[in-house]
């Protein structure tokens, strides 16, 4: 297997590669639970995080993941950097590469920005931490890790993704990851917020295990896991939503609707939540909720990813 330098989306990950990463993330979780949360494996590596959009959990968890493995992590935000003086993204990245950083983690409001960097950076790896409405591969990996931990192998499992799928980079990456692991996906939400292109793979082939169901009562029937997405008020164009009240009435994950899913079904949300809009508050903090565990797993999965990108080759060493 060719050694991976960049992680841009999950559409080029095989089932084996995802499984190996999740196995490694399980081991990293053990390290997270220790009183001394530190191992020296990335000593001397420099990881940059360049966040051109607000973020708490993704930025902090990348930073924490890098530091726990002893990498030096340097955070750069849009404001206060040369980006504010009008420096282009490429020139900023080339400057950072010239400082011998090993990896850049980028969050950008523009879909495709990490791909552009990956094409133009010769020595520095690129990890996509969310680009516009396109992809968010590490969020998808932590979702997969959380699901696998609680409901076992995902082959044949039914996962409902409800809400603003159109603007959701999380949903897009989740669909690729769930497909790779053999789960079936139901996309649910107002017709204006469900993109039809998710029914097709990157080669235009149709994906038989991805379906659309606009009625949440029907979509949630027998679900093993429900992922509620944030209504992204900052990305709503006019006319996409009838009204918040109507959205809440028809697409909020409520106690009543949750009872239609399989007993013990997982409730997930990538955060930040609009409690009482896409998910009932009682559920968000109830027993089925994995929302805090998702955050913990986010650190573990990012540790596994940094370890994979910044150390050795790929095949397992013969002992």
């Amino acid at each position, binding site marked *: 297997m060719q050694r991976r330098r960049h992680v841009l989306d999950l559409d080029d990950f095989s089932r084996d590669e995802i499984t190996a990463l999740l*196995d490694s993330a399980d081991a990293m979780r053990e390290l997270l639970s220790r009183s*001394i949360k*530190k*191992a020296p494996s990335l000593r001397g590596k420099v990881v940059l995080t360049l966040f051109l959009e607000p973020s708490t959990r993704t930025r902090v968890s990348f930073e924490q993941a890098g530091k726990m493995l002893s990498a030096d992590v340097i955070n750069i935000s849009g404001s206060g950097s040369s980006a504010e003086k009008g420096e282009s993204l490429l020139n900023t990245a080339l400057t950072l590469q010239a400082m011998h950083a090993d990896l850049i983690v980028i969050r950008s409001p523009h879909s495709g920005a990490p791909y552009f960097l990956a094409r133009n950076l010769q020595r520095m790896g690129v990890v996509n931490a969310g680009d516009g409405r396109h992809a968010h591969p590490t969020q998808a990996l932590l979702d997969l890790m959380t699901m696998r931990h609680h409901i076992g192998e995902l082959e044949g499992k039914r996962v409902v993704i409800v809400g603003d799928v159109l603007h959701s980079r999380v949903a897009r990456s989740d669909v690729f990851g769930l497909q790779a692991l053999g789960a079936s996906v139901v996309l649910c939400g107002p017709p204006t917020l469900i993109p039809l292109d998710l029914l097709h793979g990157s080669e235009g082939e149709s994906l038989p295990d991805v379906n659309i169901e606009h009625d949440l009562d029907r979509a949630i029937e027998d679900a093993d896991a429900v992922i509620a997405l944030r209504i992204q008020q900052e990305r709503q164009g006019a006319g996409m939503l009838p009204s918040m009240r109507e959205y809440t009435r028809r697409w909020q994950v409520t106690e009543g609707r949750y009872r239609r899913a399989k007993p013990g079904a997982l409730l997930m949300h990538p955060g930040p939540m609009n409690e009482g809009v896409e998910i009932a508050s009682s559920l968000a903090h109830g027993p089925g909720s994995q929302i805090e565990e998702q955050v913990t797993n986010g650190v573990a999965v990012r540790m596994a990813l940094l*370890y994979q990108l910044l*150390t*050795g*080759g790929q*095949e397992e060493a013969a002992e």
Partner: protein
Amino acid sequence: MTEGRLILTGEEMRRALTRIAHEVVESNKGLDGLTLVGIRRRGVPLARRIADAIASFEDASVPVGALDINLYRDDLTSRPQPLVRPTELPSGIEGKAVVLVDDVLFTGRTIRAALNALMDLGRPRIVQLAVLVDRGHHELPIRADYVGKNVPTSLDEIVEVRVPEVDGVEEVAIVERVKAVST
């Protein structure tokens, strides 16, 4: 049919581990605070064998843990990437007499990594080392407290300890390095 040159049969392995079990109990003057920690992968089944042997003659059980040292290796950038697996130390190591167990003592670098990993997990009262085979060529000032068999080797050889849990058979053999790559 054994691959390579057989140096310990399953029966000889069992006897060596039983002797190590007796030595561990004797030199620690009993089982008080004793814990066995196997280094993944093959150190773990060997640690269990030693614990089973101790249980058979002392009528008490010794806790067995598993230590993954891959995050502590000194060659992470120069060799194929090893898979990291969880470390499991059910009884902890704080204040304990820890016996590290590994299959082969070679350069000593794995043990160096294991000691660092262990120190990050707590402060044991004492750490000892048990290995099934000491093959020489140490590169660090590290030696074993308990040795199943000393085997002189050349650098072109690989000592393979095979255990049923991983390899389906129980034996120790020496294979040539070139041949080992193809298997």
